[in-house]
């Protein structure tokens, strides 16, 4: 179990994000929660590829050693950009909601339910 501490840390980050998402009423905090989940997942991905005593997967003048797995790095790069795009769009919607409702309290932003 102690070997897997980095994985557990990522899982805890995800759980914190999920907690924020479920129990906070502020729209900005909801976006932050989403970002926490996303960071947790990204960290989890990149942690999967780590190998002890290995270098970054780039050929340079450094003596050839073991290299860490390159695929998770590529995947994480993709998912970071995707996360950035989602965050931009969600924040824009938050701005628009604030303009219409003059509040970012999720319990007051519920015209749809009525």
């Amino acid at each position, binding site marked *: 179990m102690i070997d897997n501490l980095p994985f557990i840390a990522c899982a805890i980050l995800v759980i914190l994000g999920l907690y924020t998402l479920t129990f906070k009423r502020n729209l900005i905090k909801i976006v932050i929660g989403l970002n926490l989940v996303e960071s947790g997942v990204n960290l989890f991905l990149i942690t999967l*590829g780590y190998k002890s005593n290995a270098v970054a997967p780039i050929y340079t003048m450094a003596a050839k050693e073991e290299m860490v797995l390159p695929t998770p790095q590529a995947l994480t790069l993709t998912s970071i950009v995707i996360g950035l795009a989602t965050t931009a769009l969600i924040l824009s*919607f938050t701005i628009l909601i604030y303009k219409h409702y003059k509040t970012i309290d999720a319990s007051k932003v519920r015209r749809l339910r009525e």
Partner: protein
Amino acid sequence: MRKYVLLAALLIVSGFMLLSAVDMHPFGSPEKEDMDKYFIDNAQEEVSANNVVTSIVFDYRGFDTLGEATVLFTAVVGVSLIFRRLIK
């Protein structure tokens, strides 16, 4: 009532996540690495790039990168749709 249902769902998902983290291979020693080994061994020859990650991003998994560029493009179009001027 709603709060307890949410809490229960949260606890179940958290349990899943923690369990998967504990059950994963030990940190720093991946169990299988045949696909990644192929990339490290052959990227220089096939793609002729020194940076293995870039050769994966743009060559082996270039289609993902196209998707990623599309996501960014979509988000920008979405944001400009939201902040468009209503009167022409």
